[in-house]
Structure formats: structure tokens, C-alpha cells
């Protein structure tokens, strides 16, 4: 059985609650309760047919209840993700498994073990989001098509039970003149009036009914844009750390572009330089405490020809640019944003060769901590050899001098010092505030003479070709919201039944406004205002 034929002759899809054309209810015809006008009583197919697996999956996602639960679960999950910092926001160089347990105890350990440290990129979170998307598509399709058909097929002449069971309903003995005035009023108020054997259907704002579906189309486009970020070449979000003087490949450009950090500049507001009027403002935070500018003087290079890993490519300068916060260097579809910095990383160390008895100093020698020279000649037979270098010095389990990392956080050296009086050389171990001699009988020592530091800058490498799709989706979303919110779908039926005029009204929202409008439509006639059954129930 595919169809149900109504008394009026209209053929309805099976599962329809009341006839599309005349509105005669198929069940409980004599009931006096309000008619459920949701989706115009149309048959939602998913509920009607439920045979194959595909149909079962379809009807699962077609349920608004399921959709709302998916949204609630996603909201709760998203909230959980904000309780502790996500892994990508942890301080650099910490081990996440230990960090969570150390900082937040048992709770932190559980958080990590459950995988909440990378919640937003977890597979189940993605599946949740995608399920919302699927639910949106199927819910919409399942409702918009029957609703469209039902509204298109609606007849002017309605079954009396349909009229009687509307929320706004009234019976009056109106005259023909009254009806003419009402008709004119309706047209003045931009109602679309259809007449069929004296019976009247006035309708406006049907457009509003499509709002939610337009809104969903926007959402789906938005989700599609978010999905496109995973297509290679559409989206890049990387970071690059560059010390002053360093040139590195820009990640995400496949070795095509290189960037050099010429200089990193941090400026602050100081009383000496700013106008007097700012003194008070500066004092509130402290002199030279308020940052004014973070800037990287960068040079962009393009690699020429094919490159082999491990060999410096031939580079062609493209441009130089002063990258500041919110003032990125843009090239092709990439943008480099100033995001972080590190000041005062040790880069050079200066040391004197000192005679222990006379305190006479020779030198100093300059040790480049990134790649030190091995021999330093101070002239007149004084020279120093670097035997070992530990950039991040510590004593390992066996008590041997060792390095923790390759970053010069705590440099230590083994020097061999040659002088005219000690031609065989003396060995000295030098670390910060430490001077160890193997025998303790050295005539000379290396003393600290100064350091040179350099700054490092961190830039975010960003490319996003999905933005316009997200904007398009967002715009359509908003249009849908406005369409559904600011217009009301209002209908007024007037029929002559048993010598009286029956008036019924329905709106999809804003009944207060609708009642007021009907009042205005009826003005100039003796026809009484139809009663609002819900309102009466509330009062009594």
C-alpha cells in the first residue's frame, strides 16, 4: 500500500497524518484536540519504511532526538577537552605522559590515559562531528521534501475538522461586505489570497519555512570546508624557530622556500622615550615592562633547481620583510606570523688565559658555541687548544662529563693551554663557575671574560585555502537563520459552513503578532476575533 486516498479525492503518501489538500485527519477524526501541524502532517518516509539495513541506518540518523544527543555528547566532550591543557599547548621538551601525572596527579594521569590530551583530533571526536553532519543531511532531506510537497499541494477548501482543530478558531455570522473588507485588508497586509468556491486561503511568509534547511546547507558547507583542511596542499599550520643569523627551510613549502632571521627585536615602552603624558600609564605596570613591538627582520629565499637533502640549495632572494605581530610576511598563499621568541641564548663565550701567580691575562679567545674552533693562537707562543666541548654539561651515571642536549645551556670545555713556560701544555676543565685541574698544579687557568647572546624567533607558517568555503558556509548559515527568524509563515482560512463563516488561523511562530494582525485584518467589520485555544487554556 503506497498511497492513501482522501474523501476529497486527493492521493496522499502513506503515513500522512492529515490530507495534504483538504486537511482531513486520517486518525481520530472526531477528536477536538489541537491538530499537530508539525511538518504539515506529512509522512516522514524514514518512519514509514524501515526494511533494509540502509533504511535502518537512515532512520537512525533521521531522528532529531538522535541529532540532539549527538550535539550534547559533542558539547560535553568539547568541554572535557578544556579542563586540562591539550598536548600541543604543553611547554616544549616535556614528556606528556609524565607531565600530566606530575602536574595534575591521578586525575592528570587518567586524563592522559583516556587520550583527552589530544581530544580534538581524536578519531572518536571526529566521528562525533561527522555524525552530526550526517544527521543534519538526513534529518533535513527527510523533512524538507515532504514538507515542500505538502505545502505545494495544500488546498484552499479544508475539511471542517481541520478548521475546528486549529489553534485560532472562530465562528461568526459575517456579511458578504465584511468578507470583502477582510479580503482587502489581507491583500493590504501582503497576504497571498486564493479563493475557491467562496472559500478563502490567505497565506504569507511560506519562505520562512525553508530557513532551517538553508541554515543546514550552510552548516554542511562549513563542515565540508573543515574537512578540506585534510586534503594535502589546502592547509598548513607549522612553526619554525630561527636563531639570529640562521637560515632554514620553511616547513610546509616542500623545500621550495627558505627563511633567514637577520635580527629579532623586542621593544618596550620606556619613560625616557615616550611622551610625559604616558608616564602614569607606564608606571602602573613598570618602566620598560610593557612590550611595544616584537619584530623579526627576515629574508625570504627561493631554492633554485633541484635540491638534495644535506646540501645547501642555490638560493635566490625573493624579498625581505619586517615581520611584526599581526603584520605577517605573505608570499604565494603562505603567511608567516610572529608568535614567540627567546632572548639571550648563549652564542659566544670569551675566555682569558691567565697566569695564576701574576694574574696577567692573555687573550681573550672567542669560542663560538654553535661550532667552536679547535685552536686559538694568542701570539708570542701563547695558544689554547680545545680538546672537548659539552654544550649542556652534566656528569653522567658513570661520573663522566657529558652533555644532556646539543643546546648550549651550560657549556663546559676541556682546554689545553700552551705558554712559553709550559711548552708541553696544561689541561684544564672549565665550566660555568667551575675550574677543575687533573693534577691541581697548573700555572695557568682559563677565566671567564664575557658572553655574547643571540635571540631566537618563532614564526607560525600558515596557509589556508579553505577560508572562503568556511565564509560561504557561514554566510548561508546566517541567511538561513535570518530567513527562519524574521519571517513567519501565517495562514488564515475562511469558509462558509452551515450558513456561518468559520475562520481558522495558523502560524509557525509568534502567535501574539499573528493575533494582533488578525485583529487589524478584522477591523472595520463586526466579525469577532477568533479565539486562541492555547491562551484560553492558560487563563482558565
Amino acid at each position, binding site marked *: 500500500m*503506497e498511497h492513501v486516498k482522501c474523501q476529497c479525492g486527493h492521493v496522499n503518501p502513506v503515513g500522512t497524518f492529515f490530507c495534504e489538500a483538504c486537511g482531513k485527519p486520517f486518525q481520530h477524526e472526531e477528536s477536538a484536540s489541537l491538530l499537530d501541524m508539525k511538518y504539515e502532517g506529512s509522512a516522514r*518516509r524514514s518512519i514509514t*519504511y524501515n526494511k*533494509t539495513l*540502509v*533504511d535502518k*541506518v*537512515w532512520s537512525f540518523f533521521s531522528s532529531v532526538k538522535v541529532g540532539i544527543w549527538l550535539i550534547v555528547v559533542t558539547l560535553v566532550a568539547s568541554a572535557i577537552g578544556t579542563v586540562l591543557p591539550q598536548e600541543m599547548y604543553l611547554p616544549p621538551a616535556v614528556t606528556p605522559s609524565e607531565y600530566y601525572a606530575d602536574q595534575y596527579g591521578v586525575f592528570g594521569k587518567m586524563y592522559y590515559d583516556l587520550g583527552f590530551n589530544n581530544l580534538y*583530533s581524536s*578519531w572518536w571526536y*571526529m*566521528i562525533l562531528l*561527522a555524525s552530526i*553532519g*550526517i544527521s543534519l*543531511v*538526513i534529518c533535513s*532531506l527527510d523533512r524538507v521534501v515532504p514538507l515542500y510537497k505538502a505545502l505545494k499541494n495544500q488546498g484552499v477548501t479544508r475539511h471542517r475538522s481541520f478548521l475546528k482543530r486549529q489553534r485560532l478558531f472562530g465562528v461568526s455570522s459575517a456579511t458578504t461586505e465584511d468578507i470583502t473588507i477582510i479580503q482587502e485588508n489581507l491583500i493590504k497586509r501582503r497576504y497571498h489570497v486564493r479563493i475557491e468556491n467562496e472559500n478563502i486561503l490567505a497565506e504569507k511568509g511560506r519562505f520562512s519555512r525553508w530557513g532551517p534547511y538553508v541554515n543546514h546547507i550552510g552548516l554542511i558547507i562549513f563542515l*565540508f570546508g573543515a*574537512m578540506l583542511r*585534510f*586534503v*594535502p596542499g589546502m592547509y598548513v599550520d607549522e612553526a619554525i624557530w630561527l636563531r639570529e643569523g640562521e637560515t*632554514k*627551510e620553511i616547513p610546509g613549502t616542500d623545500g621550495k622556500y627558505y627563511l633567514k632571521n637577520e635580527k629579532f627585536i623586542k621593544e618596550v615602552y620606556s619613560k625616557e622615550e615616550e611622551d610625559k603624558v604616558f608616564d602614569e600609564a607606564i608606571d602602573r605596570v613598570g618602566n620598560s615592562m610593557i612590550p611595544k613591538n616584537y619584530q623579526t627582520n627576515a629574508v625570504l629565499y627561493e631554492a633554485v633547481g633541484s635540491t*638534495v*637533502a*644535506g*646540501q645547501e640549495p642555490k638560493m635566490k632572494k625573493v624579498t625581505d620583510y619586517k615581520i611584526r605581530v599581526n603584520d605577517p610576511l605573505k608570499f604565494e598563499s603562505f603567511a608567516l606570523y610572529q608568535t614567540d621568541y627567546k632572548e639571550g641564548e648563549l652564542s659566544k663565550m670569551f675566555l682569558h688565559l691567565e697566569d695564576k701567580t701574576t694574574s696577567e691575562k692573555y687573550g681573550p679567545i672567542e669560542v663560538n658555541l*654553535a*661550532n*667552536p674552533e*679547535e685552536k686559538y693562537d694568542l701570539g708570542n707562543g701563547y695558544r689554547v687548544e*680545545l*680538546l*672537548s*666541548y*659539552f*654544550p*649542556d654539561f652534566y656528569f*653522567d651515571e658513570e661520573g663522566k662529563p*657529558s*652533555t*644532556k*642536549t*646539543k643546546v648550549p645551556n651550560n657549556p663546559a670545555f676541556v682546554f689545553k693551554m700552551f705558554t712559553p713556560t709550559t711548552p708541553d701544555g696544561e689541561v684544564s676543565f672549565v665550566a660555568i663557575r667551575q675550574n677543575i685541574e687533573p693534577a691541581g698544579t697548573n700555572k695557568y687557568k682559563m677565566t671567564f671574560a664575557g658572553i655574547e647572546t643571540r635571540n631566537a624567533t618563532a614564526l607560525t607558517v600558515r596557509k589556508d585555502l579553505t577560508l572562503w568555503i568556511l565564509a560561504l558556509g557561514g554566510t548561508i548559515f546566517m541567511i538561513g537563520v535570518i530567513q527562519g527568524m524574521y519571517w513567519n509563515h501565517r495562514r488564515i482560512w475562511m469558509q462558509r459552513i452551515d450558513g456561518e463563516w468559520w475562520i481558522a488561523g495558523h502560524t509557525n511562530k509568534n502567535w501574539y503578532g499573528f493575533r494582533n494582525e488578525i485583529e487589524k485584518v478584522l477591523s472595520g467589520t463586526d466579525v469577532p476575533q477568533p479565539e486562541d485555544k492555547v491562551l484560553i487554556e492558560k487563563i482558565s
Partner: protein
Amino acid sequence: MKKNRFVFRTVILLILVGALAFTLYQNFFTETEKVEIGKEAPDFLVTDMNGSKISLSDLQGKGVLLNFWGTWCKPCEKEMPYMNELYASYKEKGIEMIALNADETEIAVKNFVNQYGLTFPIAIDKGQEILNTYGVGPLPTTFLIDASGTVVEQITGTQTKEQLEEYIKGIVPK
């Protein structure tokens, strides 16, 4: 009518599930390893501590053990002598070994090489470019590349001498 409905629903569901599957696949199965087993090993060109140039493409026809290491990394330190011993016995069988240091200072690498008397080619990977190309995470990481230049194995962490020898046997050219 019924058939249409079935086809329509199936197509829509397939599109939606397909989009989800694509996203999950992109997110979890690509880019995790830049060098894939069974694929050609990316070429590189370095200058070793003795000043001679080594490029992977010149080593076609030989089995190559490519090791990434650092002097601060204790497991690397443990592994190096094994590699040294194996190099002596497998060099004639057509095995080449290259140890690429993760951008440390010349003096640190030189001292390390002298300390352990390492005889196989060792080079500094300046700027860690090769390390990045190979997508190496923790050190030590070793790649085994066969005579045709295909990556056969990627090993992370210290190996015993016996384990290393087994791996090397697998890439001896026939």
C-alpha cells in the same frame, strides 16, 4: 519507487561515510612516516668527517645501513661499537654504513669518533635536513636500504649486536 529510494539513500550514505573515512584516513594514516617501507629511500649528499662526499644514489648496488645519532644519546653510544665491528666484517660483502649526526659541533663528533675508534663513514647532518626528510623522531633510528635503494626496515632504539647482524644479513646484495 522503492528501488529509487534505496539507491538514493545508499548513495547519500556512501558519500557521507566516504567523506568521514577520507578525513580519518588523512588524519591518521598519512604523514606519520615520511619514509615508507618498500618505497625508495630519499637521496642525500653529505661530506663525512674525512672530507669525502657520500651520496646515497652512488651506493646503488650496495646494502646501506643508515643510522641517525647524537653524542648526547646514550643508547646511540652503546650501539656504535657494534656497528663498527659489523662494518669490518660486512664491508667486503657489499654493505655500507653511514652514521648521520644530528647537527652537533665538529669537535664533539670528532672526539666521539676518536673515543670509539669508529671506522665507518660518519657525517654531520647540518640543519638536520636529512633527519627531517626521513622523518626521524627519537634517536637512534636506523634505516636498512637494499641494493636497489628501497627502504627495507626502520628500527628505533638500541639493538644488540646480534639483532643488528640479522638486519644487515637481510640487505647483503646477492
